[in-house]
């Protein structure tokens, strides 16, 4: 079956611009996670959605980052006024419910010039 998909696969943007990254989780998965990986770093948790509960935003690095999950399915991660340090691979994962194995999407490579 279809896995987690993300778009775009690559995004190059100028410093100061806003970007939106999209994640389509596996159908029926109630939990959705956003992570990012910077060069030489491990995966960094950003935000987590579980069903209709309020999202856990504890990992968002600044107020320039926000995320939404509409209808319990598709999620969008928005980065406003991008900075060069935002350059990273942004990964989305979904799981049936929290605590179950996560299935990762291919990621979006963001480059801020």
């Amino acid at each position, binding site marked *: 079956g279809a896995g987690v998909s993300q778009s775009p696969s690559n995004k190059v943007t100028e410093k100061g611009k806003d970007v939106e990254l999209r994640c389509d989780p596996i159908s029926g998965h109630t939990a959705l996670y956003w992570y990012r990986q910077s060069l030489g770093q491990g995966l960094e948790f950003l935000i987590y959605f579980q069903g209709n509960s309020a999202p856990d935003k504890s990992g968002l690095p600044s107020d320039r980052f926000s995320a939404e999950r509409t209808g319990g399915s598709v999620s969008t991660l928005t980065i406003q006024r991008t900075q060069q340090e935002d350059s990273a691979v942004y*990964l989305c994962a979904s799981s049936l419910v*929290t*605590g179950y194995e996560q299935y*990762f999407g291919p990621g979006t490579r963001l480059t801020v010039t």
Partner: protein
Amino acid sequence: EDKVVQSPLSLVVHEGDTVTLNCSYEVTNFRSLLWYKQEKKAPTFLFMLTSSGIEKKSGRLSSILDKKELFSILNITATQTGDSAIYLCAVEGWEDNDMRFGAGTRLTVKP
């Protein structure tokens, strides 16, 4: 402060060698420990461990958890060049929804 520490950070071996990767953690209200293999962009799930002393095995890979000593190991036997990757350890807590990741162990298997 919750933390997950992996060791070694980097490891270079030759095909056929056996490797052991370590993950120690300090997490409030531990729920599960997960191992991932990361090649290129997307990590792939390997194991989820919740109980002490029960080995999980998949082919040449195996892992075990020690909840008393707060660590897990990932073993890879008869390594192959395709095993070259970053191996990530992550820990989930019951109350805190986020996952704590270690920095990963970069494994390089030479022919």
